[in-house]
Each structure stands twice: as structure tokens, then as C-alpha cells.
């Protein structure tokens, strides 16, 4: 059978961001996938050398538009570790709440994109309708819809008062009701299952060997979640990783659906336990030292490496983002699949190319 090379991307209806794959196909089966990335490289890591470390949190937040808050939070945590800054407990809880709101809107965005990718436009619209309610909460509490801008070195910029907490908890009940209906469709509908079950299977051993992170790894049966490290308020709010064992696209969808409700639960627990007090401490001096910080993004583990030498500029800033860790696994599961399933498999790793290329 003759082999053909079909270019996939960088512009493709299922790709919100540019990534290119050369798919070697034999008839309708994919034999090999050769990736090329680098279309949206912006040199943000280099920018750390010329931006004040306090201001750099704005750049860190803009590494990605969807997981922006947790990027800012991870950066702040890294600087606070180097400078031995004790962040007030209230600020830590607020960061946890915003981090989980960010996870909710990211997962709802992805579930919508997945529905759109398989041609289920109606489900896509409804998923984003619910996401809009989360964005409204985020805008009312932080001032921004996707770029929160509320995290700073030494704490957070804004507080959420008791009346707002009651209002948000009420809204979350409504959102949960909506999400229950949508996840029922996403997980039980015949047409959705037909597109996802048994597609792009990644075994537990493969997930482990290829260094997968996040829902991709948890869908293959590895129970690992960076929130178990106890950063922010996660030393007081326990998180049990949501796992599946099938390792296929359906399992990855199911893990993300489960994480929606887990995030809601975390927000409720955080609001129940949130202590009173200040939300920021004054930061003086410049950082000296080196640190590695890991947190759980909606797409998986993100690793920040920072090196500071006592000036207001960092000497080295390096980010290993979750999509970068999941790309090898994606390339592993593509060979052998049908050409028509390629968009779904690429979508199920929840690719964030802006993160990957920074």
C-alpha cells in the first residue's frame, strides 16, 4: 500500500493554537506522526532578565490565557520560597479558590472544544454557557475574565468578602446542577461514546515511561496529582486524584468531568475554612537563590525553575509546561489510529501550545 503524507495544522478547525503534524498514512491508518512546534514562541523566559521580578508576575500570567492564574501563582510561590516570605493564610486560601475556578473554566472550555471537535455543536454551546457563569464569578472577584491579575508576590491583590462568598456559593450550586446535566451527556451519550471509547489508548506503562502528567496520566491509572504536595491551602484540603484505568479518550474525558466536581468541592471546603486576616505582606529586598516549584495546572504538572542573584532581575527563568510533557505520549498513541480520529486524540491531551512554546 502506498504511503501518503498528510499535513495536519498549523491551521486546522480543531486546533485553537498552531501545532503542525506530518501524518504518514497508509489507506486510512496513521503509520507515523512527525511533529513540528515553535509557531508561537515569544521568548518569555528571556524576558525575565530585563523585567523587575515583581512585575514579572504579569508576564508569567500571560504564558497562557487559559491556565493564567496558576502560572502567576506558581511564579509567586517560587519567589516567595527563595525570599522566605510567609504568605498570609487568607491569601493562600484565596489563591486556592482562584486556582480551582481557573481549573473549572479550563476544563469546561476543553469539554466544549471536544464536543465541537466531534461535531456536537449544541453540547459545545451549552458547555460554554456554563463556563460563562464561572467567568462572571472570576471577573467579579478578580477584575479580569481570563487574565486574573490578582496574584502578587507576598499575597493577593484583592479580597473576597463574606457577602460575595455567600453569593458565589449559591451560584456554584446552580453551576453544579448545570454541570451534572452536561456530564451525563458527555459520559453516557451514545454518539459521544462512539467517538471516544477505545480511541487513542495509552497504557499505564506507556504513560509512566513517557512522563505523562495531569489528566492524561490519571486516565491511564496513575494516581498522581501535584496538589497532593500540599502547596497553597492543599495541606489542609486533601485531594484524592481522580483516576480511570482504560487510558483511552473517553477515560481522559471522564477524568476531566470528575475534576469539575472535585474543584467545586475544593472551593466549598476552602470557603468553609478560610481564615480572617490580611491578604498580603510587604516584600522588601531582592531574591537570592535558586528553586524549583511544582503545581497542578488544569493540564497537569507545571515545573518552574528560578535562579536569582540578588538583583531585581532574575538570572534564569525556566518553565516545563504540562502539554510539553504530554506531547510524546500523543505521538505514541497516534500511529495505528484512523485518520478521522486524529483530531480527537490531539484534543484529548488538551494541547496548550502557548504554554508549550512560551
Amino acid at each position, binding site marked *: 500500500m502506498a504511503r501518503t503524507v498528510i499535513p495536519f495544522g498549523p491551521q486546522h478547525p480543531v486546533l485553537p493554537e498552531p501545532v503542525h503534524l506530518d501524518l504518514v498514512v497508509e489507506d486510512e491508518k496513521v503509520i507515523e506522526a512527525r511533529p513540528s512546534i515553535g509557531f508561537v514562541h515569544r521568548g518569555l523566559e528571556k524576558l525575565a532578565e530585563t523585567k523587575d521580578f515583581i512585575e514579572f508576575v504579569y508576564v508569567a500570567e500571560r504564558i497562557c490565557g487559559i491556565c493564567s492564574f496558576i502560572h502567576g501563582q506558581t511564579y509567586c510561590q517560587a519567589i516567595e520560597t527563595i525570599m522566605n516570605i510567609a504568605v498570609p493564610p487568607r491569601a493562600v486560601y484565596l489563591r486556592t479558590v482562584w486556582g480551582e475556578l481557573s481549573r473549572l473554566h479550563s476544563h469546561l472550555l476543553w469539554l466544549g472544544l471536544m464536543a465541537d471537535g466531534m461535531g456536537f455543536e449544541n453540547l459545545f454551546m451549552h458547555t460554554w454557557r456554563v463556563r460563562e457563569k464561572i467567568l462572571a464569578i472570576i471577573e*467579579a472577584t478578580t477584575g479580569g475574565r481570563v*487574565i486574573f*491579575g490578582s496574584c502578587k508576590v507576598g499575597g493577593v491583590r484583592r479580597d473576597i468578602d463574606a457577602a460575595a462568598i455567600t453569593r458565589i456559593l449559591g451560584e456554584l450550586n446552580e453551576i453544579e446542577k448545570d454541570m451534572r446535566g452536561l456530564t451525563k451527556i458527555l459520559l453516557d451519550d451514545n454518539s459521544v461514546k462512539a467517538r471516544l471509547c477505545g480511541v487513542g489508548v495509552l497504557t499505564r506503562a506507556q504513560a509512566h515511561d513517557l512522563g505523562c502528567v495531569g489528566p492524561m496520566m490519571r486516565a491511564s491509572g496513575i494516581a498522581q496529582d501535584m496538589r497532593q504536595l500540599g502547596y497553597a491551602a492543599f495541606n489542609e484540603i486533601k485531594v484524592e486524584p481522580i483516576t480511570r484505568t482504560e487510558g483511552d479518550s473517553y477515560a481522559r474525558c471522564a477524568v476531566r468531568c470528575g475534576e469539575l466536581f472535585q474543584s467545586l468541592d475544593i472551593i466549598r471546603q476552602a470557603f468553609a475554612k478560610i481564615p480572617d486576616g490580611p491578604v498580603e505582606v510587604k516584600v522588601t529586598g531582592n531574591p537570592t537563590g535558586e528553586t524549583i516549584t511544582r503545581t497542578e495546572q488544569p493540564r497537569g504538572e507545571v515545573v518552574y525553575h528560578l535562579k536569582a542573584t540578588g538583583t531585581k532581575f532574575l538570572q534564569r527563568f525556566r518553565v516545563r509546561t504540562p502539554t510539553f510533557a504530554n506531547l510524546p505520549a500523543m505521538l505514541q498513541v497516534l500511529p495505528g489510529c484512523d485518520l478521522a480520529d486524529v483530531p480527537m486524540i490531539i484534543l484529548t491531551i488538551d494541547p496548550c501550545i502557548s504554554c508549550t512554546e512560551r
Partner: protein
Amino acid sequence: MAYFEMTKLALKWAMTKPATSQYPFVPRQPVAGSRGRLVFTKDNCIYCNVCAKKCPTDALVVNRKEKKWIIDQLRCITCGYCVEVCPKKSLSMDTGHDRVAVTRDHEIH
């Protein structure tokens, strides 16, 4: 196995008011606390240049001699850092997103 779940949802929404608003005929109501647009109040300003120094995108220029406060709206990311650091509170954040920057010409106040 779920049957006709989506149909039920679609039918329900076919008889409900749309979740979207008819923009631009129905303008979006500003959300309290939203970072919409930077507003400068000339009366209090002492032209200390702190806002321009702190601006992460270098969108602000302060000319102390001529008493001019200049903003490049296309560079401003409405982060609100200048509002935080202004010693005389002459900067504030408006909640409206309706005004759009369309020109590279700097706004001089």
C-alpha cells in the same frame, strides 16, 4: 446509557430566553470591580513618575516639566499596578470595557 438527554436540553432551551444578549443593541452591563479602562484625574497628580516607572508594559510617560500625563492605550494591559502605586490616588480603574483603543496616537492629559 442516556437516550435523548441532549434532545431534552435542546427543547428546553428552544423555549427559554437565550443565554446570550443581543449585543450591540443591548450593551453589556459593567461588572463591579472589573478592570475596564484606566482613568486619569488631573487635579491630584503631582507628576511624580511612579506610575510610568512601575508600568510593566511602559505604556505611560510622565512629563513633569510640562505637566503632561501620556498613555499609549494599545500598550496598556489594564493590570492596575499604576492605580496601586499612585501616591495621590489620581489614577483609578473604570469598569466599562466599551471604549476601544483604535489608534497608536498617545493620549495626552
